[in-house]
């Protein structure tokens, strides 16, 4: 898998229900927010629901952007906190209904808490999730996190998450980064890791996330097409993308949103 061969896409064709899970701190929330904003661009206002299922850590949740997301017409369901950051695990009653109603016109993205502890909250929604004809369970992989820095360790944590949540992952997504210090080398050196993880898990690599700034450097250094390909969103293309992912996974440009104020996030996306 060479980075030069990986197509650059602005849209990942997602099924009606997408679950974003993985080891703690790999960038699940940032990826879930990026996928949600991507869906918002593709489908418009009032089409999308983002569910924050992280009830194990009170920081860096997608729920921090609840008001902002809603102002963009993204429905949001997350833990209820009396004073915004009380450390009390609780789940909104509307989650099961939202999952049952997920469709290609009204897709749902679930941002799961880290590790098996965080994935435990998924287990009670298994009936609604598996009732969907198709869903993606994306295992987010970041090789710069020490507890998953080799594919065997990442596999062990995936198996724990699957055991506790009662669901099996369907895809892997590459999300290796070093925040602002992410370089083309960071991404390139993660590719053998992702290939090995895909081989061990027998799962397709759905895409490799690359921060926008890093993508510009990559374009210069590796001669990638700087022009992003227009999104294709015919239902047929969507179905084939989900069932038989291309041999060469695409590069998906992302913004670093987590940790930014909503004003900064808005400036990036509007």
């Amino acid at each position, binding site marked *: 898998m060479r980075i030069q061969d990986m197509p650059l896409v602005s849209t990942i064709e997602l099924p009606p229900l997408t679950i974003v899970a993985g080891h703690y701190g790999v960038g699940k929330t940032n990826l879930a927010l990026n996928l949600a904003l991507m869906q918002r661009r593709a489908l418009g206002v009032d089409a999308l629901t983002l569910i924050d299922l992280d009830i194990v850590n009170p920081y*860096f949740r997608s729920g921090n952007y609840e008001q902002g997301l809603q102002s963009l017409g993204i429905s949001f369901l997350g833990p209820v906190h009396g004073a915004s950051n009380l450390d009390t695990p609780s789940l909104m009653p509307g989650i099961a209904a939202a999952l049952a109603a997920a469709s290609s016109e009204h897709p749902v993205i679930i941002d799961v808490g880290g590790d098996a502890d965080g994935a435990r909250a998924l287990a009670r929604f298994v009936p609604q999730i598996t009732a969907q004809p198709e869903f993606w369970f994306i295992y987010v992989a970041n090789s*710069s996190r020490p507890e998953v820095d080799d594919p065997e360790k990442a596999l062990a944590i995936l198996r724990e998450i699957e055991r506790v949540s009662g669901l099996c992952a369907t895809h892997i997504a590459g999300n290796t980064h070093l925040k602002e210090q992410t370089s083309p080398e960071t991404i390139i050196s993660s590719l053998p890791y992702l290939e090995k993880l895909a081989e061990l898990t027998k799962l397709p690599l759905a895409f490799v996330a690359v921060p926008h700034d890093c993508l510009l450097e990559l374009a210069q250094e590796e001669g990638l097409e700087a022009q992003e390909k227009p999104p294709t969103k015919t239902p047929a293309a969507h179905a084939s993308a989900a069932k038989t992912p291309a041999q060469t996974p695409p590069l998906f440009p992302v913004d670093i949103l987590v940790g930014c*104020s909503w004003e900064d996030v808005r400036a990036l996306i509007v």
Partner: protein
Amino acid sequence: MSEKVLMKGNEALAEAAIRAGCKHFFGYPITPQTELAAYMSKRMPKIGGTYLQAESEVAAINMVYGASAAGVRVMTSSSSPGVSLKAEGVSYMIGSDLPAVIINVQRGGPGLGGIQPSQADYWQATRAMGHGDGHVIVFAPATVQEMADLVARAFDLGDRYRTPVMILADGLLGQMMEPVVLPEPVDESNLAPKEWATSGHKGLRPRNTISSLFLDPQQLESSILERRKRYELIQEVEQMAQEEYMDDAEVVVVAYGAASRIVRSAVNKAREEGLKVGFIRPITLWPFPTQVIQAAAKKAQAFLSVEFSTGQMVDDIRLAIRDELPVNFFGHTGGVVPDPDEVLVAIKRSLSQETFYEIPYQKRLTGGA
């Protein structure tokens, strides 16, 4: 050199402790420190160490006392309310001359307070980390890298001076992720033997006794005075601070830990505007870096302390310069974090010879943690 990895401040503190030869951790979970204990709970069994979640902070610190008395490198961690609970045990450790590393990932107080970052435990850490005539050495890292780097130094100084050492972080540093190069593991065979430890005399040496109880006042006074000599040495040789833009500084901004990151942005902006502002970042809070503060006072016209509190370090600046120059204060507390533009305004007011001590009342929409 090892590779860069992406870690939370809390995780970096834990991994750096293990690499500094710490194989024993006793604690009790509390936000925003919990990742540190969680990391230890996963790693300690793999390296043949001890991780124990005690029934309370009071129990945890007394387990630390026991492990330290047995001569091993030991750590505990907590956040503000939990650190208050540990204070009794820390005082006993001071009185018994026992080294250990204690982490405080501060949150808003007093009482249960909140779970957002704060620097309101400065007085507790530097003045009264327990009852009695005593001190602990206090380090204040400002980046995840520095959190990793200071842990080994904390263990070394603790062993050298036979004293508890605190790393005073806050929720911002504990929770934030940054790329970090982890320190190389220490060679434990190079560590000085602890001849005072109660680790079994095997009939080969006299029995060691570790206690903080001295019923004879003369004896208690001489034990305190002996310790005080060590404190004087620490104050002389262990001060650490970082200085920037000090050559022509008319106003010197002093800030530590997470606040120093915001202040650095503000000072950089001020310098871009041609303003003569300098920056001192204390890395040790006790001993307070009086040497660089006093040197700065010879050339500057005023100081400005910026803290996530109602103004606590400001006392140490005033003491260091014996109130010979105005010391302004600007901050926010309770989990509210100042932004660089507010600090820039405070810098400009200090340059125009205004004197002030304030926390503006304001409500801001905060995004993120």
